[in-house]
């Protein structure tokens, strides 16, 4: 088990592709993506799975054991969040090496 960080990011579904490109550019080791997620925040209610063109979020989970990359990811993600809202949380975890 290796001491690492887990990064959780919630942004609007339409921005998923741009977020993926950013993560790859900052060579994140990988990501897990939960699509079509609901939520509520400053910008009102986002009911996932609705027809109108604006109502879903998506949740990224990124495990990363290199603190330097973690720092770069949080910095790289900030402008996207400032523009379109959402959250980014960083917490400690142990990563099972297999």
């Amino acid at each position: 088990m290796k001491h690492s960080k887990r990064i959780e990011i919630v942004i609007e579904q339409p921005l998923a592709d741009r977020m993926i490109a950013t993560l790859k550019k900052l060579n994140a080791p990988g990501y897990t993506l939960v699509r079509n997620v609901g939520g509520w925040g400053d910008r009102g209610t986002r009911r996932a799975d609705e027809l109108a063109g604006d109502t879903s979020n998506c949740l990224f989970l990124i495990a990363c054991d290199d603190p330097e990359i973690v720092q770069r990811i949080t910095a790289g993600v900030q402008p996207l969040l400032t523009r379109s809202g959402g959250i980014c949380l960083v917490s400690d975890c142990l990563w099972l090496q297999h």
Partner: protein
Amino acid sequence: MTGAFLSNLSSPPLLFFFLGLLAVLVRSDLDIPGQIARFLSLYLLFAIGFKGGAALAVSDLGGDVWISLGLAMVMSALVPLYSFFILRRRFSVPDAAAIAATYGSVSAVTFITAASFLDAQGVEWSGYLVAGMALMESPAIIVGMLLYNRFRQNGNANNRDVRWGTLLHEACFNGSVFLILGSMAIGWITGPEGKQQVAAVIEAPFLGVLCLFLLDMGIVAGRRLRDLYAQGSKATRLPLPMMVVAALVLPLVNGGVALVVGAGLGLPAGDLMLLTVLAASASYIAVPAAMRLALPEANPSTYLAMSLAITFPFNILFGIPLYHQLATWLA
């Protein structure tokens, strides 16, 4: 006048739209699963596109076709221009630009409901108008962004340059536009025999699917109305009265412009009515998606709520019979 009005209101699709609104009013948990609603809308675009293309294959593409298509694209660019300057007085620059783009663009389902209204009344309309619908989606988005770029205060916190690449791509290749134009091309290539092969899927079930789709639209519009009523979003204070007025006036103004210009060009009654409906309708899928990417400063609780919860119901409940009546008089 009331004849057309009543027959529209008592057509199955409209009644199911009411049922959807009622479901939200009585807080029933009736809900059409999201993927199904998205597929029903793809089906409607696939079917109307294919039929439009097959109709084009058998009709001679005379001069007036290109004039009407040109008129449609001009409208899509013109409408946001004057709308922006009206809206700017009461809304922020980003919101005004987004609303202008939304109302310059079109709602495919409003067009489809109007077309099936004409079919029920036995009024002819030409297939190329489906192409007009597809062509009207994009110009409005581009003009909206030009206006935003031109008039936004430089003091904006994140002085961000507009990504013209993504914007143009999003405007021209979003899912709905691509599917309508693609299905039209295939309907045109395969012509009548092609249409015959797939008739059982695109012809007979069309109205029944429209009923189920409008049931979902009623639920989605009803929820937006309830949110608007509760002025849901925590932080931003929404200029509610102004939004309601704009959402009712803009369709009439835009529709009126199209009616006058179309009549001037001597369009037949059915085509004139559909062109008016396109001008009067506002987008609630394609433009909001583009705005999320290109113009996040605009608050969807304004332009999306206006087009989905106010203008869409207004157009299919009262607009369609009204524009039909006016088009019949003027044509």
